[in-house]
């Protein structure tokens, strides 16, 4: 059973090959021009490195966001295209949950909540917080959404001791009980964690998690609300 996992929701595309119980290969393409557009090229090299061909895949797991809209779509389109051509299942997994699983290693205790925070631009972050249990098992304690950093800090303070990880961690003001994970490797999405999530919680639909409406729709709804008031 060989599963290909990919996540292109963040600027550092991540991919992995996971055999039954072991991670056979894991790679990050790094921040750079083209973002998730490089994912299939990365996959081709990863397969070659691991000594497999694409037809050897049994399943695909893809990070469905949140993150960059275009990146999310490229990852999902790539995963679904592979699944369609190979006739193999494709599962979705939350990018924020995968981030939390990776960052759980730096908790001071099992009770500490892990907050996943991704830079959403425009002064916001895509974030959620989880209590992390058995391997692959996460329970959401702060809802995944596009948060204003100040409001997120307040929400995190309310759930008890908490450690923040992700490329948006620096944007969240620190409040008592909330600390930041050491910057660096924990900010990346662990692609193998996507597979662990699916294994622990069963198949999930491949539905993009944008967490934001298109601007045009946001504006249309605002006009509608203002029209209703006027």
């Amino acid at each position, binding site marked *: 059973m060989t599963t290909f996992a990919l996540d292109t929701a963040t600027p550092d595309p991540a991919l992995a090959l996971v055999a039954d119980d072991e991670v056979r290969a894991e790679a990050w393409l790094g921040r750079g021009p083209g973002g998730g557009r490089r994912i*299939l090229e990365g996959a081709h090299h990863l397969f070659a490195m691991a000594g497999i061909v694409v037809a050897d895949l049994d399943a695909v797991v893809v990070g469905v966001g949140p993150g960059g809209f275009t990146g999310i*779509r490229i990852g999902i*389109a790539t995963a679904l295209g592979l699944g369609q051509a190979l006739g193999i299942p494709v599962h979705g997994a939350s990018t924020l949950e995968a981030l939390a699983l990776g960052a759980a290693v730096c908790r001071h205790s099992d009770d500490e909540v892990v907050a996943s925070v991704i830079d959403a631009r425009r002064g916001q972050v895509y974030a959620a917080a989880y209590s992390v249990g058995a391997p692959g098992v996460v329970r959401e304690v702060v809802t995944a959404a596009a948060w204003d950093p100040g409001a997120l800090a307040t929400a995190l303070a309310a759930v008890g001791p908490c450690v923040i990880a992700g490329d948006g961690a620096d944007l969240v003001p620190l409040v008592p009980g909330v600390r930041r994970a050491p910057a660096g490797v924990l900010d990346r999405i662990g692609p193998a964690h996507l597979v662990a999530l699916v294994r622990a919680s069963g198949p999930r639909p491949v539905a993009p998690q944008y967490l934001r409406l*298109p601007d*045009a729709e946001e504006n249309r709804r605002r006009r509608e609300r203002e029209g209703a008031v006027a």
Partner: protein
Amino acid sequence: MGDLVLAIETSCDETAAAVVDGRRILSNIVSSQADLHAVYGGVVPEVAARHHLTTVNAVVDRALAVSGTSLRDVDRIAVTGRPGLIGALLVGVATAKALAYAAGKDLVMADHLHGHVAACWLAPVALDPPFVALTASGGHTRLDLVEDYARPVLLGQTLDDAAGEAIDKGARLLGIPYPGGPGLEALARDGDPTAFDFPVGLRSRGPGGLDFSYAGVKTALLYATRDLGADGVAACRADLAASYQEAIVRPLADRLIRAAAQAGVPAVSIGGGVAANGRLRALVEEGAGKHGLSVAIPDRALCTDNAAMIAAAARFTEPIPWPDFVGADAVATAPPGGIAA
């Protein structure tokens, strides 16, 4: 080498896939998003891209099923690589790359505008060069000399708005909902095209004098509606529509015929969404009759955005062998020469 092509097109607001065998269309599936965009009064790129993602695999499945073929049977996969809305293009390109990579097929990155021209290559029109092609839609307005399907040569193009864009904007000024083309044409049928003297969308840049400009006519309609006031507009909506439509489609027909005469070719073609306009068709037929030119107009389904035309363009575009296309990328803009073939 076989010639069975699976093609995918997602450059704007239609999610499309087709299976084409040589010149023969086996399936041509289009899932239109027009209704989704109507509430915004135009195509919203992010809305388009989101919808492409939820639809494209099913559209590909349907194209294969209707054609009675499978992915295994096709000789290569083609996809629109440029130009278009980048987020929309990327959904099709990522899908096509993954399909081709997993199925072990070569990939053709085709040019959308090349597709509009190459639609005439498909049966039953099956037009052979040389001819002059007019492509007019909401996104493009151009004339190409086609002596070889592989290398259309740009003769003229719009310097500002596309013809279809001008039609939509004018329709909106007259209170016709998006997309305004069919409504404007229906209204114009009861009107007098000479009632208003709108500036005709011509520009004589370059030696051939075959460019177009539609910013002026749009502004003229705006001023006319302001001068008339709501009651005045209501009284002569049909005349306004007919005159406005005439100012847009007549230069298209005139330039097309003139370009063909200058180039000394025996035929002209029209494509793009505006090719569905009955007044344009009538004017082109009339002009072509005077000059002894034959006129090729593909079915409406091949004029508006579709994937069969991308398969046709792919027939004249160098494929990228497996797996060299893994790094291939979509591009929003047209290349300097106009068409990337």
